[in-house]
């Protein structure tokens, strides 16, 4: 039987995701996740949020065009 509620699990979800909980607390969280589909979904979408933020930025850099020519020129002028 899990004694953990949704509010407790979500308050410490970052510690759960980053594996910073002591084994006993982690086991309590795991028991709650087994019986709570809403928290399972929250955990999955929280992880996906981190992945999306990082992935979207990486894609942005992949697709980034060259720096604007006027910026390149301005930087070079500072040096001259």
């Amino acid at each position, binding site marked *: 039987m899990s004694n953990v*509620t*949704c*509010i*407790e699990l*979500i308050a410490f*979800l*970052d510690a759960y995701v980053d594996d910073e909980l002591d084994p006993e607390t982690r086991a309590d969280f795991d028991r709650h996740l087994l019986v709570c*589909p*809403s*928290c*399972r*979904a*929250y955990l*999955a*979408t*929280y992880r*996906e*949020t*981190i*992945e*999306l*933020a*990082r*992935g*979207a*930025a990486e*894609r*942005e*850099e992949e*697709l*980034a*065009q*060259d*720096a*604007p020519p006027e*910026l*390149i020129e*301005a*930087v*070079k002028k*500072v*040096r*001259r």
Partner: protein
Amino acid sequence: MLADDGHLIARLRTGDDVAFEELVEHHAAPLLAVTRRILRDEEEARDAVQETFVAAFRGIGDFQSESRVSTWLHRIAVNCALMKLRLRERRREQDVDALLPHFDPDGHQDHSSVSWRETAEDILQREQACALVRQCIDQLPEPYRVVLVLRDIEQLPADVVAEKLQITRDNLKVKLHRARQALRTLLDPHMRGAM
């Protein structure tokens, strides 16, 4: 340090103008992406890139040979962008509570969460979806957006970010967790249905 980096640094230290131009042409675009993410203002982002190269050139003697040039420039660019953020008039810290989950008196979520239809990997294949993620990040209240950008996107260590933002590690941890939850809330309606 990469072999190419070593050669480039050696040339920069001799005041080689061509080497400086190569440095600028190779690194300006990724650095501009970093400063744009932090500042969300095109003019300020470009200024920060200029200042990055000026600082890099002046500090070329401090470059540690075990570093990569890209990592060294990235660190300088983050610092330049954060300096600009501090110079802006301090905005009132907007309340992020509306974007955090809410609970019943018995501690359960007041609205059930549901899984998203696609994995993050699949979503990221579509440029339109990536743009939407970036728009949602831009909607975060500034202190939370900056923490999320520095920790989850730029992946700077917690100690470094706490020091740069002049907050405690505990405060940083709380802000990052709230930022992720707020971003999740903003993404949720879009990700529940197939985009």
